[in-house]
């Protein structure tokens, strides 16, 4: 399964994977993903992407929101590449 999800549809609505919890940790000045006996410390762009993955917004909407928030354009490739990676790690899931 790992590494096979190289694509994610623009209309998909990604959510944080079951068994994972995303939260901001002031002591680490970072978003972290928590799971049974483990933790992933996210860099700032990964944190910004994942905190928008609420199962309601589509990939397209999330990309647009990020571009607005950071005054950037052309983020779609990087964002979807990261989302595909996060899906392969079960950090994200697509609920049908």
């Amino acid at each position, binding site marked *: 399964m790992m590494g096979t999800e190289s694509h994610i549809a623009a209309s998909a609505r990604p959510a944080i994977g079951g068994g994972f919890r995303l939260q901001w940790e002031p*002591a*680490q000045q970072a978003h972290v993903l928590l799971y*049974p*006996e483990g933790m992933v410390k996210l860099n700032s762009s990964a944190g910004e992407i994942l905190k928008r993955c609420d199962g309601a917004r589509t990939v397209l909407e999330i990309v647009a929101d990020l571009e607005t928030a950071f005054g950037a354009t052309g983020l779609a490739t990087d964002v979807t590449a990261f989302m595909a990676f996060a899906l392969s790690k079960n950090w994200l899931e697509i609920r049908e």
Partner: protein
Amino acid sequence: MSTPPAHVAPTAAASPATVGPPLWLLLELTYRCPLHCVFCYNPTNFAQTTDELSTDDWLRVLREARALGAVQLGLSGGEPLLRGDLEILVAEAHELGFYINLVTSGVGLNETRIAALKRAGLDHIQLSFQDSTREMNDFLSSTKTFELKSKVAALIKQHGYPMVLNVVLHRLNIDHVAEILAMAERMHADYVELANTQYYGWAFKNRDKLLPSRVQLERAERVTAEFRARIGGKMRVFFVVPDYFEARPKPCMNGLGSIFLTITPDGTALPCHAAKMLPLEFPNVRAAGVDWIWRDSPGFNHFRGDAWMKEPCRSCPEKTKDFGGCRCQAYLLTGDAANADPVCDLSPHHHLVTDAVARAERPLVEEKPLLFFRDAKTSRAIS
């Protein structure tokens, strides 16, 4: 509790000047336990502990540790379900933002309590099995618990918890890895930890009866790899190799005082759950705040950085990767906690490890194990 958490993202080695947060907080709520496992890492003199911390003490520890940045919480023991205030502690920990892991034998986890713990905010349950068969599970824990644990496994899934199945491996059950993995699959475990015994506490006392042979170990690793390939992403399987078979030591606890903080039932604060054996003065949460304990106490600063190291560690290029290995193992095997972990083949004491491994090569047939079962009577008798 059987294994230290193995997969927290590592950070740089701590020195007294740059102390990071104690990301991992392990509360050993009690030494009382209905099981009597021969490989338990609890201290062999555990029966001398009679005065457990109160609910209020634990609540204060939770608040103070969270303020320092602790985020992963392990509730262990002994058997943490023997604390009637477990639900209160979980509720407060959840309110504070901890990710809460309950490490349990399953004994005492009924429908009522599992639902109450879920409401309180418990995130995950790690259930220990001693083997895949009733006979061996019950023998190794010196109890009749296999059926009960199987029921608890079903309850855990029913209530929507992610389930980690933990099985401590050793000479007497490592040949059953295929059956253990099949059992985990039947129970729909999300994670399986096949954790080879680490030789501290009761396990060290029983070491020569528990250390597997190299052939056993390699077979178990092969079986695990085949299972992983078949199961794919449905289940994550961790296989923790016994470090006696390695040539380089493990980066134990990512260096003492770096990310782990353990509080024992009587309130002693330790930089590792096995560290009580070390000849150091460790602080107690009854007498000091967690902030001072973590940042300033001599017990926690002693093995930070590398000033304490001796040769061959001091001049070793790998000292920033493995921190000289495990202090407890160095102390247990060589009598000096500042020595290199004898697992390292550069250690002048490495033969202590290879001798034990060589003794494990004896044939398995007709072995009648005479083991020390972890119970209060034996504890008092040998300590």
